[in-house]
């Protein structure tokens, strides 16, 4: 487990509670136009009971990464390299049977749109009971009771009756609660939440985020939380990993990344996001240009075509050399540590107010 990746330097030492570690993950889709490298040399660790927030825009590879952890990619069009180790077990080489025992049992997932993510054909209760029966061998009756208990736990009123309802009879917020109940029914060690609140209204989103935090405290689940919303990440995560065009560009604890970000892309994200307390005199500062096509990604640092600081790096390094990302607090940028700190303090922070 101490494979040194060429791209990102030495991996984090896997501590005694090192639970999920991903090493140099490469995910390539074959498309009609050619191979698309959706994830390119990604490494990270997640410890028990903690929450890792993965932030990125569309096409950053954040969702692909997590489908790959569960082995839910389409094997026909996908090639995967690297290592995914969950509690000492290598997942990329695991058989389908082994993965099935893991999914919904030790690793569960919540998806973005609870309307399409729940089957319209079966009752909520049945959909929750199903994985419980499969993984614990419980009887139909016991599993149903467990489903009702779980529905009560996530705050569905009249859970006994509502368990017999179909998803379309639930409101958006209740569907996502049911989805959470389904994910937690086997008391998993790892929960992957892929934009779980993006489709919800803001007051409902607040309920769901609080619910997830409270349930995490009770069950001790580790969470990988994927979102494009920095506000949600600030609320939920312990650690943050920022992704851009299939690579991680910055990582650290929430406080580190949000209070003293060190990567030009993170700066760009923060500058372009309106906040409820931002100074209205300062216009938003968007990142110029558009995210690159992954069919023909830019060489070197993938952010360099949109980066306003690249001329401060000597030579043409940004366009030729991939900047490394360290295992702990670090940012994948060729600017020196002092430069990053100076730019942040003098040019970025004053704008953020």
């Amino acid at each position, binding site marked *: 487990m101490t494979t040194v990746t060429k791209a990102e330097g030495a991996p984090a030492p896997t501590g005694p509670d090192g639970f999920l570690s991903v090493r140099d993950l490469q995910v390539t889709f074959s498309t009609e136009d050619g191979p698309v490298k959706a994830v390119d040399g990604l490494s990270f660790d997640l410890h028990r009971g903690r929450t890792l927030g993965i932030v990125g825009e569309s096409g950053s590879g954040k969702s692909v990464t997590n489908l790959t952890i569960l082995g839910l990619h389409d094997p026909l069009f996908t090639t995967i390299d690297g290592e995914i180790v969950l509690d000492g077990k290598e997942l990329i080489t695991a058989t389908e049977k082994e993965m099935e025992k893991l999914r919904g049992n030790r690793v569960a997932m919540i998806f973005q749109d609870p309307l399409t993510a729940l089957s319209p054909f079966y009752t909520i209760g049945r959909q929750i009971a199903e994985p419980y029966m499969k993984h614990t061998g419980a009887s139909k009756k016991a599993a149903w009771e467990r489903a009702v208990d779980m529905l009560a736990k996530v705050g569905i009123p009249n859970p006994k009756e509502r368990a017999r309802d179909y998803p379309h009879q639930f409101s958006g917020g209740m569907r996502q609660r049911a989805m959470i109940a389904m994910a937690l029914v086997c008391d998993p060690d790892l929960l992957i939440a892929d934009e779980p609140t993006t489709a919800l209204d803001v007051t409902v989103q607040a309920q769901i985020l609080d619910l997830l935090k409270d349930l995490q405290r009770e069950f001790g689940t580790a969470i990988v939380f994927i979102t494009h919303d920095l506000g949600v990440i600030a609320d939920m995560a312990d650690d943050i990993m920022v992704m851009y065009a299939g690579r991680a560009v910055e990582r650290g604890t929430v406080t580190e990344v949000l209070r003293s970000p060190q990567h030009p892309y993170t700066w760009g994200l923060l500058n372009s*996001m309106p906040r409820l307390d931002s100074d209205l005199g300062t216009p938003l500062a968007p990142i110029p240009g558009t995210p690159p096509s992954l069919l023909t990604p830019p060489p070197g640092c993938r952010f360099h075509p949109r980066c306003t600081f690249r001329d401060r790096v000597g030579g043409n390094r940004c366009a030729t050399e991939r900047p490394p990302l360290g295992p702990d607090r670090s940012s994948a940028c060729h600017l020196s540590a002092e430069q990053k700190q100076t730019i942040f303090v003098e040019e970025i922070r004053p704008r953020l107010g």
Partner: protein
Amino acid sequence: MKEDLVLPATRDAAADAPPEPLLKVSGLVKHFPVKGGFPVRRTVGAVQAVDGLDFQVAEGESFGLVGESGCGKSTTGRLITRLLEPTGGTITYRGRDISHAGRKQLAPIRSEIQMIFQDPYSSLNPRQTVGKIISGPMEINGINPPGGREKRVRELLEIVGLNPEHYNRFPHEFSGGQRQRIGVARALALEPKLIVADEPVSALDVSIQAQVVNLLQKVQRELGIAFVFIAHDLAVVRHFSQRVAVMYLGKIIEVGDRDSIYARPRHPYTHALLSAVPEVTLTAEEGPARERIRLAGDVPSPISPPSGCRFRTRCWKAQDRCATEEPPLVRIAGNRDGHLTACHFPEEPTIEAREEDIVLDPALAALEEGSAEGPGKS
């Protein structure tokens, strides 16, 4: 704040605003019929999408409409642009009642009121070139700008930050953000006085969203176009709009200038909405903590909205009176000029943390009571 922006609470108060507002909406109602019944199908109810709105938009002003799904904000946008016909009430544009105007009467006004849509993928015709898309409205309205339409289109492309050389390209060659720029250029083609923007940035990535917000802001300020900016994202609306109305289940429950709504809200729902926005704390030194309010459940169905105050079913201050008497949208004691609130029992005008969190959600309350640290009350 300008005096003429004060919103009249009652319909007879129009006399005190001498300069005619650009757009004046009063008592606006839109009900969509619900069919059902046996043996003969008939109208058995109505989705009360918009139920009695009053507001005005001044020339060059940016007016924000916020609210959660089902509050009727998009329907309102479609009523103003007359893509829908109101069930009741009046829409007055520059002194002319357009509530039930027919095609012919609307034609001259259509060019002055334009719309920008949410989805930049489905709102542009994929078989037309960018030039054709943008010049289309000019053609329909028979407008021949000096120097020809093509020159005007190239100017517009430049204004919205696209390369004028892209005149002959098709929409699929552009990214989402660029398409939204094309949508803006199309809206600008007829030199409108009012643009209704329905969630114009919510389909875009954060970094692109800022580009489009800035563009709209530039257009609004430099060309003096009035905006009705419809969005669910409170931070974006705050950034863009000088005056903001908060909607809940087809009604405006609070309206006022930006500061009143965001820093001194009075309606419990506005408090709940603001406290629900997840925020990035960027500065090392913490400001005063914000309040934490967690409502129970979802928005009720607009087919059978609660009696009296529509928010009462989720409100922590609700009393018997709220069920029987609908609170009028008025300037209540302690509100600044132009800040109107529809509430019998308004909150203190601050968003700073309270002594106790308000947690109405039974599951959250139970979980928080279970763990020692959550001082939740239910």
